[in-house]
Structure formats: C-alpha cells, structure tokens
C-alpha cells in the first residue's frame, strides 16, 4: 500500500473511529478531528517531499483489481498537478476545522455527523485527485457530492435544502453526462485495445472525430458545471450562500477545482483533437465568465454571494489558462487553482467570522471594522487583495502567467481578460471600503476581534498567500514539468519561447 493510499484512507478511518467517541463531548470530537486532519496534512507534506520532480510519470502508484468484470482497478498515483491539489485540500481541511470550530453546533444533526461528513469528504477529495483509473475517478467525483449535499442541507443557513438539491442535481446531471462519455470511451477501448479504464492506455485510443467530440462534450459539461463556468454556474451562488463558511471553503476551494483539474486531466489528455475543436468556444465561455462574474460580483449585496461570483470570474481565468494550450497558460492555471484555493479560503473564513459576529451577511450592515476589530479587518484586507491579484500576493503570479500564456495564442481574449482585473479592483475595493473603513455603523461597535484559535487558523493561510506571491518556485517546480507534458501530449507547441523560468 503506497503512502498515497494511506493518506487517503486515514480520514475515512478517522471517520469510522468517531463512532467510539462520546456524542456529548463535542470538544473532544473537534480536537480529535483536528488531530486527524493535521496528521493527514503532515502526511501529504511528506508525500510532496518524497516526490521526484525530475520525472513526469505518476508516482506513489498503486493498482489493485477492484471490479474485474470491467477491468476496473483501484489505481492511484500522483503527478505534479494532482500533488499540489492534494496538498491544497489536505492543508485546507485542518484549517477549516480549526477556523470554524463552532460551525457544527447549529446544524440539523449532531457534531459527530458533521465531522464524519467532513472526514469522508476529505477522503473523497484526495481520491478524486489521486485516481488514475477513469472509473475510480468517476466514483469519487460523484460520491463526493453526497457528503457536501448533507453538509449544505444539514448545516447550512437560509434556504439550505433548496440550495443543496440544486447543487446536487446540477452536479449529478453533469456527472451522468460524463458517465455516458465514460461508457463510450470504455466501449471504444474494448474494441481497440481491450476494455480498460487506465488513463494512460485510454489516451492512446484512436477515436473518430464525431464520436470524440461527443465524448469530449460529455466530460467537458460535467467539469464546466463543477468549475462553475458560465452558463453552468447558477448553482454556485445559492450553494455558497447557504453553506456554512467552512463548507464553502471546501466547496469553492477544493471541490470546484475538480472541474478544472478534470479538464486538464481528462478533456485534454483523452480528447486532444476535440479539445482543439472546441477551444475557441471554451475560451469565449471563459472570457464571458471572467467578465460576467466580475459584474455580478460588483452588484452583490451579500458577502458570500460576492465571493462566489469572484470565484466564477477566477475560474474563468483558470479555464482560459488551460485552453490557451501554452505551457505558461497551463502552469498559470494550475498555480491559480492552488492560489485561488487559499485566497478564497481566507476570504470565506474571515467573512464567516464577520458574519457570525454581526449575525448578518449583508455588506451594508458592516462598516468601520478597521477600528473595532483590526486583526480581522487586516486579514480580510489581505485576502481581498489576493483576490484582486495584487502584485506581491500569490494570485498575481498565476494571473499573470495565464494572461501571458493566453496572449501568445489568443490576444483578444487575453486583453478582455485583463479587463477582468480592472473590474476585480472594483468588486474587491468597494466592499472593502464599505466594510472596513469609514464610520463604524450601528450594531458593530461591540464586535470582538479574532480570538487566538482564529488567529492560528488564519495565519498559515495569510502566510501562504504572501509567500507564494514572492516565491512561487517550489510549487511551480512541481507543476511545470507536468504542465509542459500535458500541453505537448495534447499536440501543441508553445508559440514563443518559455518565459519566467
């Protein structure tokens, strides 16, 4: 059993063991979960340290037969891209646990259930990034929905059940379309090289154009729904508004990355020709997403909604980077996934604290927080700046890479995308100005600043944001070889020499 499998199984094991803890003692449960998730995070850091950057093949590979009738294997392994995403998820989970210590209290069910769901979700997240068997990926992809569904529906706020069902149905719909494509490619593999779900083998298939286009669309729509790309995004604002901040972090920070990750790993790798065919369309959608997300964000009165729409804009960048089909674009997109994870986490966590204190999520209810709660305000400020890709903060690097990568091939798209940065300044600065500065509005006078636990929780996130802004190299080193390989495998060569080595 490889280390990867162990790390993946650990949360599940932890979930199983929760059963033996007393239900009454919620503090104990929380501490236990924090320990477990931290262990997982540490384990994944070891995973990263042991990763051989010089090769682009899968590492920590493990493959066991699961459903022999269909030649389905429990096959896992990581390359650079999936490794950083696993790192992102495993690090975010303990932070979320710590940051949202009391989130589990007000739900429909007990504390235990909440953490069981969280732990199961963590396993699923690791699994979905680690799977090298298409079927296994699909299983994690779909099964992941269920814990999130219950997290939103059971512990969320507002019209949570409607949001939960909307989320689930959108995702299921996309997933089922993908299932049709999976079946298609499985059958084609059966006709050509013997039925298999192994990704590397599937990539070698010769598929006729029309079929490939259809199969591609099945995958792409599923991922576009997941990574909320306009016009498949409508579930996201509802879900994000209804979910608790912690869930939202996981939802936007990690789960939605599955969409963009899937585009890279499956759409490009399995259907390079179809990807080429659809690239113009997808780039267009991505650009629309950037602009649309930005405009919608400007109009938002609700903090959570604001963050949700900024994410849609950011995912537009990521998608654009992926389908620019340049190694810079690809690297940028990959890096953006990580950075967006952290900056969204920061935004949501701080916003969550603000809302919990003020008992409101409307932007206009806040004001002058800078004076009352300076630490919280600064945290929010930094997170916001990261969101608008301020140079020196992590997002800047990735956004820059994406735009450069895109410009070499699609200058118009890149230029319009740049417009998104301008709009970003609007949608971030206006709320920051409203909430943090100016006179302290009524009802905010007695808000408490962050306590120690919250400070500990937010500190690493802020640190990552800042460090990555100045020194993204370790992560880029992980990402770059794989990105180049993917672009090359898809049959593209960079139009200009590499920048930013």
């Amino acid at each position, binding site marked *: 059993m490889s280390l990867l499998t162990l790390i993946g199984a650990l949360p599940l094991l932890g979930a199983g063991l929760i059963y033996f803890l007393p239900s009454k003692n919620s503090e104990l449960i929380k501490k236990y979960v924090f320990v477990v998730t931290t262990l997982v995070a540490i384990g994944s850091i070891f995973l990263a340290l042991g990763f051989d950057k010089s090769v682009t093949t899968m590492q920590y590979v493990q493959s066991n*037969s*699961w*459903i*022999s*009738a*269909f030649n389905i294997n429990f096959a896992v392994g990581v390359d650079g891209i999936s490794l950083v995403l696993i790192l992102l998820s495993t690090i975010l989970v303990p932070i979320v646990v710590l940051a949202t210590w009391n989130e589990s209290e007000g739900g*429909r*069910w007990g504390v235990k259930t909440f953490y069981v769901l969280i732990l199961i979700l963590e396993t699923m997240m690791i699994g979905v990034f680690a799977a090298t068997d298409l*079927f296994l990926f*699909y*299983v*994690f*992809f*779909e*099964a992941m*929905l*269920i814990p999130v*569904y*219950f997290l939103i*529906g*059971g512990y969320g706020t507002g019209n*949570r*059940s409607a949001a*939960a*069902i909307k989320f*689930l*149905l959108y995702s*299921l*719909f996309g997933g*089922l*379309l993908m*299932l*049709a494509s999976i*079946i*298609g490619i*499985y*059958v084609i593999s*059966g006709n050509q090289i013997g039925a298999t779900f192994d990704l590397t083998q599937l990539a070698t298939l010769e598929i006729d154009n029309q079929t490939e286009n259809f199969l591609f669309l099945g995958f792409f729509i599923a991922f576009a729904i997941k990574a909320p790309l306009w016009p498949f995004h409508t579930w996201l604002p509802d879900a994000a508004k209804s979910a608790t901040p912690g869930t939202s972090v996981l939802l936007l920070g990690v789960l939605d990355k599955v969409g963009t990750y899937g585009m890279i790993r499956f759409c490009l790798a399995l259907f390079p020709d179809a990807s080429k065919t659809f690239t113009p369309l997808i780039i267009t959608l991505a650009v629309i997403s950037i602009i649309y997300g930005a405009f919608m964000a400007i109009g938002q009165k609700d903090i959570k909604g604001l963050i949700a729409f900024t994410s849609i804009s950011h995912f537009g960048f990521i998608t654009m980077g992926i389908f620019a089909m340049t190694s810079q674009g690809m690297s940028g997109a990959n890096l953006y996934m990580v950075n967006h994870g952290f900056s969204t986490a920061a935004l949501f966590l701080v916003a969550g604290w603000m809302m919990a204190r003020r008992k409101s999520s409307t932007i206009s209810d806040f004001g002058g927080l800078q004076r009352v709660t300076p630490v919280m305000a600064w945290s929010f400020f930094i997170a916001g700046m990261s969101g608008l890709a301020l140079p020196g903060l992590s997002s800047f690097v990735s956004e820059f890479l994406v735009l450069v990568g895109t410009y070499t091939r699609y200058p118009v798209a890149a230029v319009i995308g740049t417009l998104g940065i301008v709009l970003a300044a609007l949608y971030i600065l206006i709320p920051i100005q409203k909430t943090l500065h100016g006179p302290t509005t009524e009802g905010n006078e007695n808000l408490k600043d962050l306590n120690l636990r919250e400070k500990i929780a937010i500190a690493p996130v802020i640190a990552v944001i800042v460090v990555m802004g100045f020194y993204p190299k370790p992560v880029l080193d992980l990402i770059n070889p794989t990105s180049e390989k993917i672009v090359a495998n898809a049959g593209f060569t960079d139009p200009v020499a590499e920048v930013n080595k």
Partner: protein
Amino acid sequence: MLTAPSLGYMLLSPMLIVFAAAVIGVLIEAFMGKTHRAAVQLTVSVGALLLSLLQLWRIRDLSSTTAAVNSVTIDKAGIFLQATVVILALIAVLLIADQDNFTAQASAIPGSNEEAIALQQNNQQTEIFPLFLFAVAGMMLFPVATDLITLFVALEVFSLPLYLLAGLSRRKRLLSQEAALKYFLLGAYASAFFLFGAAFLYGYAGTISLVGISAAAGSANEVFLLIGIVFVSVGLLFKISAVPFHSWTPDVYQGAPTPITAFMAACTKVAAFGAILRIFYIGFAEVETLWRPIITVIAILTMLLGSVVAIAQRDVKRMLAYSSIAHAGFLLSGVVALNKDGLAASLFYLMAYGLTTLAAFGIIGLVRDSSGEVTDLNRWIGLGKKSPVVGAVFAFLLLSFAGIPLTSGFIGKFAIFSAAYQSGNIALVVTGVLASAIAAFFYIRVIIMVFFTDPVNDSVSVIIPSVKSRISITVATAISAVLGLAPSLLLNVAENFSTFIK
C-alpha cells in the same frame, strides 16, 4: 406410438421443491389448527426456499440442461435467475410474514361485522404463504421456459396468486381490492395478447419451441412472425410495466399490501426480464432488425416517462412504482444490447434492483400512524429526525435507485449502459443517462423531505420492526451495500452464468 419421456427431475428439483412446499402449504391450511399455522407455514416456506437454493447450487454444473421434454432449459443464466428469484423471495417472505399487513378474512366486506369478528378472534391470513410459494415457483419456471406454452403457463402461475395477494391488504381494503381488480383485468388482457402472439409464432414456425422459431427465420411467412413478436412483446412488456403498458403499475403498487408490493416489484421483474431476455436472445435473435428499433423506442419512452411522471407523485409507493417503470426502461437496454455483456449486466441489475426494492418497501411498511401505513410523502417530512437510522437506510436505498456511485444501482446502470453502448445504441445510453438525472431529482427530493425539513405532524412514526422485518431489511440493505462496494463478487458470477443455451 408414444414413448414415455423422461423429465429430468434433478434439473427440475429446485422448482419442484417450491411447488411441493406450496401444495403442502395448502394441506396445512386444510388440516392444521389456527394457533400454530402461521409459524408452521413460515417455516415451510423458508425451508423450501432454502432447500431450493441448495439444490440450485448443486445442479449449477450439470452438463445436461434441457428437461421436461425440452420445454425448459436449465442453463447457467436460468440457474442464476432462479437463484435470484429464490433469494429475493427468501427476503420477501420475512416481510410478508408480518401478519399485520393482511386482512384477517379476505371474503369479508370491509367494515362489516364479519371482518370485525375475524379481527377480534385474531384470525390470521395464512393462505398467503401457499399463494406466495406458487407465485415463486411460477417465477422460477418463467425464465427457464423454452417453449411458448410453458412460458404462458408459467406466466399465469405466477400472476394469478399475485392478483389475489394484491387484494388482501388489511387496511384500506377497498383500495386494495381495486388494485387487485385492475391488476387482474389488465394482467389477463396482457396474457391474452401474449397468447395470441404465441399462436402466430407457432403458425410461423410450425413449432412452439423458441429454438424452432429462431431456426425458422427467413424461411416462412414474415407477417406471422411480426404479428407474433409484437403481440408476445405486448404481453411481456406489460409484466415489466414498460410504457405504454405501465398504467397498472402505480395503482397496484399503491393498493397492494406493502410486502406484496415489495415481492411483486422485485421478483416479477426478475422473472419477466429473465423470460424476455431468453425469448429475445434465443427466439428472436435472428430477426433482430424486426424488433430492435421498436424495443429501443419503448425503452427510451419507458425511461423518460417513468422518471418524469415520478416527479409529480405525492405518494411514496406510487413514486417507487414510477421509478420501477423507469428501471424497466433501463433493463430493456440490456435486452436491446443483445450481447453477452447485456445479459450479464441484466442479471446483475436484476439482483441489485430486487434487493434495493425489497428493502425500500420493507421500510415503507414501517412508517405508520394509528390507522396504518402512511405513504403520503407530505407526512414523511422530518422522519429522519425521529428515526435517523431508518431515514438513513431509506436515503441510502434511494441513492442506490438513483444510481449514485458506490451503490449497487450505479454498477448495474453502468454495466447495462456499457453493454447497450457496445451494441451501438448510443441514443439509448444518452437517454438513459438523462432519465437517471431526472430520476435523481425525485429521489433526492424525498431525502430532503425526510432529512432537511422539520416534522410538522407528530402522528406519523416509525414502528419498531419485528425481528422478521428487521432481518429482511437488514439483509437486503447489507447485500445491496456490499454489491455497491465490491460488485465483483456478483459481477463475476453473473459473467460466468450469462449463457443461454439454445
């Protein structure tokens, strides 16, 4: 000059055991005192089913396959289907044994003195056991029958007891009787179609054996063949409640006593699909161009209609009825696939679906108020709060129906769609996937009602199940869950057993 044929008792023994038990059951009804009758009947039923299962195991590798003068073929797939029926029946019989669900005296007028007296005397309806066993035996015969008349007889042998059983509900008698009437009239109507079609197939081929019909392909009057296939299909499609022959399903599912609904939904599907698969794979395979387009269209319509109409349902039994219609559509994809994978996939699907259905209806039987079962979905609101375990199990089963990964329903769907895709029916796969998405909506809506909404009505509660119900629900759910996580256990078996022998 006649010669005495040999029947092949060894091969027939699994069926004969069940038949014999049914006959013994009738004798027990006749000569046994009231006090221990129910217990003895249950013992006999369970014992016979177990024995039959054992016997199936023992004959699984026999080299000879035809028995009873070529009227049945106990091939691998046949044994698998029979075993499926028996296993599902074993679980169902425990649900049925909860006497509370059946009227004490079927002939009494609802609400009459007679009925009150029967209730007062604590009379128990034990005739259900022999009826049940007859139905099971018929269901075992149906998928192995290889000539038209055996098919017809088997069809009736399992249908007739079901018609009666459907009318025996203890509460809501009128509804139940009405269900029985509808089921009977439409069922008999469909049988007549089947028979008429069989007559024309006979006229076409000059023989009633499926092999003979397939051998006659191309040599005789195609019109007869077409009429025959169409009418026989109508009869069979009715049994599996495919569109447009589905209209009985919701009514009957709703009106029949819940354990019977469970049994009917699970086992009838297995038997009928077993027979359909055999007929189409053996009898009509040579002339697939005649029927495949039609069945494909029907499969598509069935999937879509079942899924769409289910959304509007306010009664959980009706909802599951429409869901079963949708599942019939999925299963038809396996028929259309017309390859070995399609057969294996169908075998797996039938088992998985049957188990899930049994457990789901088992749970429906537990949700009650003072006047009996509550099937109105609006009153299920907040059930998860009152009894989280039952709610969680029901949610799991619904997810399995919906085909969420890591459930047996998903593996089944995947298997069947990949077989269909393999045979080139891509439209079918796409529709199936869309229908699944639609279907997911109403399953999930139920989960929301059960879990995400606060209870408004305190009169509904989950009764503490008796040991029998508990065993059957637990076993069915457990197997279903295992099949979701480790489907290889059954898939490999299904693969090995997926051969029809001509």
